[in-house]
């Protein structure tokens, strides 16, 4: 509860930062729009621009614009997208949902991969397997996600003659939600999931390995061994259990990273998530659309941190009793 209360000023701060960020570029949407029209040969006079500004509220001082925006956000109104000529809510709903699905499933994938490999690497330290995983881990860290996406796309095109982009097969792209669409999503989801998760998994493997190596030589392990526990029980019950704590606390930064990474991957793989639209909105100064995406992404990561804190408190009595 205390943490929840602490989140509100935090998200408020985030919203100010976000708004400041999207107002940072010189000029505004109307100017960009006019420039685009001018390029197309139409002329836009100042009176038209002024009336447009007035319609969108862009002639108001910045803090009033902020206030109008944020008071709308609180009641679920994220404003109006200038580029798309429709309310922001209509645009972000499914895209944020898919971003969340992608991030969350990647997180699970990351753990499912990192935990056993990390444990294996620590327990069989300096074995051939450890060296192989360490090396793969290093490569995973070194190859940026979008590059991996590009390589996979190349492999997909040249070997399988299939486009690996997108999250849906063509018939499902605009279809309403159905069970078949979910199945189709699951079929496509794994490629971005693997691409996005590799970097995170690589660093988590290293964290898990280091934590566990630390714990393996703690005196309480000797105590447990002296009680006559088998090596496996011992390992699961003590060092792994305790090494999990710092592991769990990594959600706090893994999730922001995943949300971050998904933006670029989505652009490369042309996924219908938040990334491509955010990029367009930022470039076109579609302020409320960009703002909504940024705000929601930041909130998502804050919630992730909160979840990891709660899990940590559940796992570690020392934190509970503090």
């Amino acid at each position, binding site marked *: 509860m205390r943490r929840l209360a602490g989140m509100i000023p935090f998200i408020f701060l985030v919203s100010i930062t976000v708004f400041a960020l999207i107002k940072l570029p010189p000029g505004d949407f109307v100017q960009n729009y006019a420039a685009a029209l001018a390029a197309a040969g139409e002329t836009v006079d100042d009176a038209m621009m002024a009336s447009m500004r007035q319609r969108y509220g862009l002639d108001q001082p910045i803090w009033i614009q902020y206030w109008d925006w944020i008071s709308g956000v609180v009641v679920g109104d994220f404003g109006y997208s200038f580029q798309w000529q429709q309310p922001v809510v209509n645009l972000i709903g499914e895209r944020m949902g898919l971003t969340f699905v992608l991030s969350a499933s990647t997180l699970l994938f990351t753990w499912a991969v990192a935990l056993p490999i990390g444990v294996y690497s620590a327990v069989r330290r300096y074995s051939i397997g450890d060296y192989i995983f360490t090396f793969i881990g290093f490569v995973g*860290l070194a190859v940026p996600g979008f590059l991996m996406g590009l390589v996979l796309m190349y492999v997909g095109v040249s070997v399988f003659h299939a486009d690996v982009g997108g999250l849906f097969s063509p018939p499902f792209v605009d279809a309403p939600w159905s069970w078949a669409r979910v199945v189709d999503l699951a079929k496509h989801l794994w490629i971005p999931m693997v691409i996005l998760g590799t970097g995170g998994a690589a660093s988590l493997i290293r964290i898990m390995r280091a934590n566990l190596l630390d714990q393996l030589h703690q005196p309480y392990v000797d105590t447990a061994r002296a009680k006559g526990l088998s090596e496996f029980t011992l390992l699961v019950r003590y060092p792994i259990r305790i090494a999990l704590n710092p592991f769990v606390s990594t959600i706090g*930064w893994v999730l*922001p*990273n995943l949300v971050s990474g998904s933006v*670029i991957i989505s652009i490369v793989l042309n996924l219908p998530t938040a990334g491509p639209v955010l*990029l367009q909105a930022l470039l076109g100064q579609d302020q409320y659309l960009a703002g909504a995406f940024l705000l929601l992404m*930041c909130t998502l990561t804050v919630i992730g941190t909160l979840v990891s804190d709660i899990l940590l408190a559940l796992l570690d009595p020392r934190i509970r009793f503090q």
Partner: protein
Amino acid sequence: MSATLTHGGLETASQAKLTWLRFRRHKLAMFGLVVMVLLYTIALFAEFIAPFNPDRSNARLVFHPPQAIHFIDDSDGGWALRPYVNAFRLARDPVTLEPRFVPDASRRIYLHWFVRGDGYDMWTFIPGNLHLFGPENPRDMVFLLGADRQGRDVLSRIIHGARASLSIGLVGVTVSLMLGITFGGLSGYYGGRIDWFVQRVIEFIISLPTIPIWLALAAALPKDWPPMAIYFTITVIISLIGWTELARVVRGRFLQLRSDSFVTSAWLDGCSQKRIIFRHMLPSLTSHIIASVTLAIPMMILAETSLSFLGLGLQPPAISWGALLKEAQNVQSIASAPWLLLPGAAVAITVLALNFLGDGLRDAADPHAH
């Protein structure tokens, strides 16, 4: 006198020397060091090492495939060690009639060390035309790593791109380091309210998803700025986020050192605040800082690559690995010219080498951490 003093070369070895001795045992890290020295040397002397001017284009050589180097030349009956490549000629695919490059075994382009070729101004002020290697005849083109969609040599472009990509890492890390040492040091040395405030700021920044923020900041840059201004602004944008990690490391070590009794002793010895910080505390931090910095550079390089890849970082005609990868953004170009992905390999090698190096440095700096 109870025990005899240990003898050998080590008792007069300074900490720096001991750290170096430990580091040398770390084979991967030594390998990383060698690779990085090599890469930075290449970046520094890009004009000389690249065989061609990176902007030399030829509309007839669009997407020219890579040519393999043959070392043994048997053209005049016997054989000699004369490296050459087979020239390619343009032919039409008999079925689709698409233009295709096919190797022309009859024409060989011989490669030489230290040839005269495209002119350049090294570091913008040393004119020259000497290249480390290149074709015998400066009018020939040799594409060891293929050509891009304007018929430019990808190898030369990667070599020139190294300069921007690698230096952004260094400059960015310097900015981050200054921010990190200042705030981390303040936080760790004074503690209390300053510490609290700096910590909250760092927590705030860390919990923001970096790439959307970078995008937003980078999108705010006017497109008509000169490349140098963009370059520096991008660097600053990247470091604005990157300093937090360094600040945390510095703070943690400062807090730990502050309670170490040799620092207290220095104060009791009458050392001034300045001397305590610069003579006693900072030297104990250097190896940790160097290690963290080494691990921060790859993050910076990756960030620049990502931004430029999305078209928000360095803009053509500026060359960086990210800007080069932008060429490979769509499936069609990758499918027809997969060698456009090679700048990515350069990124991966660099990041890998820096990670090895940083890990080795960290282990050497802190032998008791494990």
